[in-house]
């Protein structure tokens, strides 16, 4: 398999880079070792488009975060991904913490973040009546937003594939050689040749770079646990509530999600194994204790799930973006921790610039279409719209997931979309079937049935998320 560009890693960064490159008349492949895109840190983070006051001025993090916020609106609009500008608060819980807010405000202003202001408790309580008793004031960041990171990633991959890029799942890169002016990648799908390689491998970006002998990237795996609460709790706060940051990150936040749940987390613990996403009882306990300081009404009785993600923390403390010193046609987009989601569109733009400079400028496709059509979301439609939809296609009249009101039609769309769902979790992330309060207890088996039927395989070959994650074994006696 021969390509002009191979992008390694289908997280949000790899997805948006691939989409960016799909506007040229070149062959682009997106290589992903899992059975789907958005399987690493992308599916398990705080889902915030940060305003940009955290990063140290002058760093790539600062620059790309602020640029990312600008680009995110256009990207989400083109990809039909919901983006909600819900504002953020950084809360001080003592007078001693107030100067820290001033510092963040200054920093944000240097970074070019608009509209930052500091409020005292009186106004804070008006903004968020459920804020904790010990809160004395807060920094208000009006440009902070929430977005669903895997939805953005899936939409990006879909759009890239529609524009001619190839999405190669279950494609793990195990060696890279550089022979005759091209990279030869040894992968689980066979040999892949590419003139350029882009390393967007998240927590594994250090290992991927070392395959070409570039050992300069040091990644620490920073583990974070989260709770997701029922939609009945989604309006406890309307803004994203941060606490004053620490050396380990932005601390525990309480925030509504764009789908109306409440997310609480993360903890932060450095671990060795980038693939270890087991939650820990210590981490879960820690986020709960911290969360109730911000919002005392947070109750774990309403937790519908807990999960964890691993951020790729670079020891250099800044994003590593640019050509490798070993080979300039190997371009790193590595060490992308927070604000990685916020920066992703800007990272894609930056990589686009770098690769075009190296190549002397790729030719643009005449028929590039930046728009990914909006998927049917039955739950958001009016009665009239629903009736019309079912008239056209009866599959929209059968509700499969009762908690989230997801129809069979939406599940079929998710499976048959470009780079569509191949497993139960893939259907879940694309449609929300199984994402509700019963967590797939009822619809799980129906989704397995539909996947088996549409992919034309027996039910016991359907997995939860690829690999050996099979849901059923043999037939009963």
């Amino acid at each position, binding site marked *: 398999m021969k390509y002009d560009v191979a992008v390694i890693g289908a997280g949000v960064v790899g997805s948006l880079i691939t989409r960016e490159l799909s506007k040229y008349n070149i062959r682009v492949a997106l290589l992903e070792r899992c059975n789907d895109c958005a399987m690493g840190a992308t599916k398990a983070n705080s889902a915030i488009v940060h305003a940009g006051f955290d990063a140290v001025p002058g760093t790539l993090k600062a620059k790309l975060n602020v640029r990312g916020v600008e680009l995110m609106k256009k990207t989400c609009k083109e990809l039909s991904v919901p983006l909600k500008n819900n504002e953020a608060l950084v809360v001080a819980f003592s007078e001693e913490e107030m100067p820290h807010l001033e510092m963040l405000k200054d920093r944000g202003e240097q970074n070019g973040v608009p509209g930052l202001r500091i409020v005292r408790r009186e106004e804070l309580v008006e903004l968020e009546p459920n804020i904790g008793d010990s809160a004395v004031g807060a920094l208000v960041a009006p440009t902070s937003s929430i977005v669903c990171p895997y939805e953005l990633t899936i939409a990006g991959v879909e759009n890239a594939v529609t524009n001619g890029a190839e999405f190669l799942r279950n494609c793990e890169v195990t060696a890279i050689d550089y022979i005759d002016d091209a990279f030869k990648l040894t992968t689980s799908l066979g040999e892949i040749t590419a003139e350029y390689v882009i390393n967007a491998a998240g927590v594994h970006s250090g290992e991927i770079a070392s395959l070409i002998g570039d050992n300069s990237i040091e990644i620490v795996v920073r583990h974070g646990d989260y709770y997701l609460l029922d939609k009945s709790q989604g309006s406890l706060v309307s803004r994203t509530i941060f606490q004053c940051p620490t050396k380990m990150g932005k601390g525990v936040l309480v925030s509504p999600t764009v789908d109306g749940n409440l997310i609480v987390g993360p903890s932060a613990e450095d671990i060795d194994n980038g693939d270890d996403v*087991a939650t820990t009882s210590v981490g879960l306990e820690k986020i709960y204790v911290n969360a109730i300081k911000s919002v005392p009404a947070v109750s774990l009785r309403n937790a519908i799930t807990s999960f964890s993600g691993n951020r790729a923390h670079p020891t250099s403390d800044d994003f590593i973006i640019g050509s490798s010193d070993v080979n300039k046609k190997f371009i790193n987009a590595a060490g992308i921790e927070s604000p990685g989601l916020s920066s992703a569109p800007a990272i894609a733009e930056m990589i686009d610039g770098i690769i075009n400079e190296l190549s002397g400028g790729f030719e643009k496709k005449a028929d590039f279409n930046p728009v990914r059509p909006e998927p049917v979301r039955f739950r958001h439609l009016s009665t009239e719209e629903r009736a019309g939809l079912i008239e056209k296609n009866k599959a929209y009249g059968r509700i499969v997931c009762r908690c989230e009101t997801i129809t069979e039609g939406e599940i079929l769309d998710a499976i048959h979309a470009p780079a569509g769902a191949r497993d139960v979790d893939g259907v879940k992330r694309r449609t929300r079937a199984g994402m509700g309060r019963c967590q797939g207890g009822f619809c799980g088996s129906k989704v397995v049935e539909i996947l088996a039927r549409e992919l034309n395989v027996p039910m016991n070959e359907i997995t939860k998320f690829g690999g050996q994650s099979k849901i059923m074994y043999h037939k009963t006696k």
Partner: protein
Amino acid sequence: MLNYDLVVVGGGPAGMAAALKAKEEGVEKIVILERAETLGGILEQCIHTGFGLHYFGEELSGPEYAGRFIELVEKTDIDVFTDTMVLNISDDNVVTAVNNNEGLMQFKAIAVVLAMGCRERPRGALSIAGSRPAGIMTAGTAQKYVNIDGYMPGKKVVILGSGDIGLIMARRMTLEGAEVKVVCELMPYSGGLTRNIVQCLDDFGIPLRLSCTVVATHGKERLEGVTIAQVDDKLQAIPGTEEYIECDTLLLSVGLIPENELSKDVGVELDRVTSGPVVDEYRETLHPGIFACGNVLQVHDLVDYVTEESQIAGKGAADYIFGKKKGGTFINTKGINGVRYIVPQRVNIEGEENLKLYFRVGQVYKGAKVVVECDGKILSSKKKVKLAPGEMENVVITTEMLKDMNKDSEIVVRVEE
């Protein structure tokens, strides 16, 4: 808009019994809306026997029990829509539903019976640390895989929670050749029926560990094992008691939650303990014309009682439709001292029939008395060999007892040791 006298939401044992009773009482236009492909509800996957001992005086399987009611429904002119999901009930009792044949439908009803049943508590509600591989599911989901789809969801099984479905699945998985290693129960007693512990665990030599829980799950893609630990009297894991058990499947039977999303949307008031609607003795909710019965009202252990309760709701709905529902003076019932809740929560002191108050206790009692009192006066007191949280109990309130009550009275049920 389709006009009906009675719309029944849910075609399980509760919905069918309510509809049939209403029909018997003379209600003309009745429709049952069922989300599954057939009537019968969860009984369709309960292929074990033990249903109907009280109501039919014989031991039936779940599908057989349901089958008897399905046959009766088919003999009437009750309309049935299967594969049909109710999306919403409006304030004026318009029920909006959808299926892939008729599309969106709206039913204008005089009365509505809520009979949506309940769902199982998922893993997320438990905060078990660890990985989230395939192989962790509720016992009911596993039951569907085995009994309906015909596939085995695992070979080496640990079950957390000794609710009835967990116990039934311990036996079912064993009969299908799986190895059930242990059933762990957080509480110092089982939440299931005694007969199920004997017939599903003891008879197969499956150990039941009380005061024990799963503290971690292991395995990346498919479950590889769980760590279990003993818990103290505050239900916290005791350090040092952890034990690793190799398994590929963890089944959860850790409680059932009445599915009241529709009820909440229309503003039906719920009981904090049962998570079901607050009802009077006719099973009418505080929203006029909306009745509730079966597991959506309170989680039952015996379907026979579901039938009994649903017939009350069906009769109540019929009376409401005919404008015969008894008004009167309603007083509250209250469970204290070990009695966790009472259904119905409201009783008409001008009622003309004896009625039963159903309740569950919060722990196991041996040789304790169940005392019913009102305004400081003991109405009844009955000694019970055993009271357990897994078994629903009832006491009878006679019209005689109601005579002395007034609008400020409160009927209290308590356990006395």
